[in-house]
């Protein structure tokens, strides 16, 4: 936490007035929490717990037991439990742009529900599986290998929720007529959710390119996913930046064009 | 009807179908033993490359497309099949 907290006040002090007066402050705060979250997320899963890159599903039992006993898994768990609430913020940040599109609200609701279901099964539960193993070293190896499998399969093999979420995102971008996000991003997102489908074989095989640490199911999916995440992020940044002031929810009534009316006409 | 048959697209299609049957026959004939057979593999892969090229060129109308699109799609066909064949021969 200290990293960003220490960073924030400096620009704030310099442009104290302009910073506070930014009309899109809520969106910017949400937006800048995203890299913070993803860095933590990466930190938790890679250098701290070494859960990622995934260990082999075919590891020998002593190896698995050894890994499940590493204390760092617990520290990773703590950081994740503190930070996983930021995942909804990043999703909400993306949802704001989908909300501006000319598509039905059903798209953003689908994304929202996907985000809700995905957070536990794809993030918290797997991490807890590893944490539980490290928490009580007394468990026998059968329990530990089960937790190991459960953790990896839930983390890598959780498919449907993210699939629907990114499908709705892709479709919204492609069908949108307001040009909020570039069309090619929609097509890129289709690959992203098809790679989610490609992860299905991890439930079947324990070695080779389709295992959960395999060339096809993991590494190839990652080479598509990581740039995608960064590109989405940059596109969202530009979308927030380019949103005209008159279109904001807090725009003064005289600035607000008539078309915004129908959007905000929801009852109490 | 004759216009349809004389249409260049139909001629391309006839060619594609013929080579599909030919390549199936090659596989059935030369590859019946289900053993490594470099002749069969080279033949069917080259035929597949030509087929892919024809579809891209004529059906997808890349023939009339700007140079960058021609270059990218042809590059894909050439690159892919070069890689496939070299991986194949390297593994023998």
């Amino acid at each position, binding site marked *: 936490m200290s990293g960003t907290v220490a960073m924030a006040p400096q620009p704030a002090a310099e442009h104290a007035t302009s910073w506070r007066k930014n009309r899109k402050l809520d969106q910017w705060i949400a937006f800048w929490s995203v890299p913070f979250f993803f860095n933590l997320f990466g930190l938790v899963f890679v250098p701290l717990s070494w859960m990622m890159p995934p260990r082999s599903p075919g590891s020998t039992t002593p190896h698995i037991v050894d890994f499940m006993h590493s204390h760092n898994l617990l520290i990773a768990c703590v950081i994740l439990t503190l930070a996983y609430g930021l995942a909804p913020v990043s999703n909400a940040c993306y949802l704001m742009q989908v909300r501006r599109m000319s598509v039905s609200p059903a798209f953003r609701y689908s994304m929202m529900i996907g985000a809700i279901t995905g957070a536990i099964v794809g993030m918290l539960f797997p991490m807890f599986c590893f944490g539980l193993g490290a928490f009580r070293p007394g468990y026998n190896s059968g329990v530990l290998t089960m937790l190991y499998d459960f953790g990896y399969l839930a983390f890598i093999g959780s498919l449907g929720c993210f699939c629907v979420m990114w499908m709705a995102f892709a479709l919204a971008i492609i069908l949108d007529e307001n040009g909020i996000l570039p069309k090619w991003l929609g097509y890129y997102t289709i690959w992203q959710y098809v790679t989610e489908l490609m992860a299905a074989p991890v439930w079947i095989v324990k070695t080779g*390119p389709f295992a959960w640490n395999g060339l096809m199911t993991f590494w190839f999916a990652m080479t598509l996913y990581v740039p995608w995440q960064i590109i989405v992020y940059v596109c969202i940044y530009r979308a927030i930046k380019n949103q005209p002031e008159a279109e904001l929810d807090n725009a003064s009534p005289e600035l607000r064009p008539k078309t915004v009316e129908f959007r905000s006409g929801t009852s109490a | 009807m004759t216009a349809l048959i004389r249409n260049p697209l139909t001629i391309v299609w006839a060619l594609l179908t013929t080579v599909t049957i030919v390549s199936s026959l090659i596989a059935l004939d030369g590859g019946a033993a289900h053993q490594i057979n470099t002749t069969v593999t080279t033949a069917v892969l080259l035929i597949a490359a030509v087929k892919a090229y024809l579809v891209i060129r004529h059906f997808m109308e890349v023939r009339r497309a700007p140079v960058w699109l021609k270059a990218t799609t042809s590059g894909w066909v050439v690159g892919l099949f070069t890689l496939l064949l070299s991986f194949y021969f390297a593994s023998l």
Partner: protein
Amino acid sequence: MTNVAEGVTPGVDNSRPDDSGRGHVPGDSSMWFFVIGDLLIFGVYFVGYMYFRGQNHELFLQSQARLNLDIGAINTVMLLTSSLFVALGTEAARAGNRVAALQRFWIALAFGAAFPLLKMFEWIPEICSGLTPGKNLFFMYYYVMTGIHLCHVALGLVIMCFILRHLKTSKAPKISFVETGATYWHMVDVLWLVLFALLYLMR
């Protein structure tokens, strides 16, 4: 990239694409972004398949022997024919001949719809006789690659229905929309041609 922007000027109703000089990008340029990316992604799969095949020729050859080459070949012809009619339909739509375009797209749809149907006739007996994706690496590749391809086919059929509806109902059909869908369908065809050679034919 400037060519791209010019190629997709919307609402180019029934006019012929300009053949002068720089050429014409058929359909939406972002669809081409998708097509080229998809070709590359499948390319990675193809090369990966070849690499792992090279590790164990014996296994792949033995497994290959259990595939149904007949259905594979028939399906190839189905997709080729479907592609032909899509191309012919696009040509007719461009020439402003809506009746012919509709007719050809219907035929294309019928041939395209036969593909998943035949695929089921191929898959179900295989799965019933124990040739599941877990059997070995060849069958894993076989099901994953043909499965993803089948998803593409399904999406293509949906797109084709939208094209049909567009040609039927809209006052001035947008040729760029027809071209976009056609481009996608031909890509599905191209991918199958490579898959057919890799999975069924090569030795």
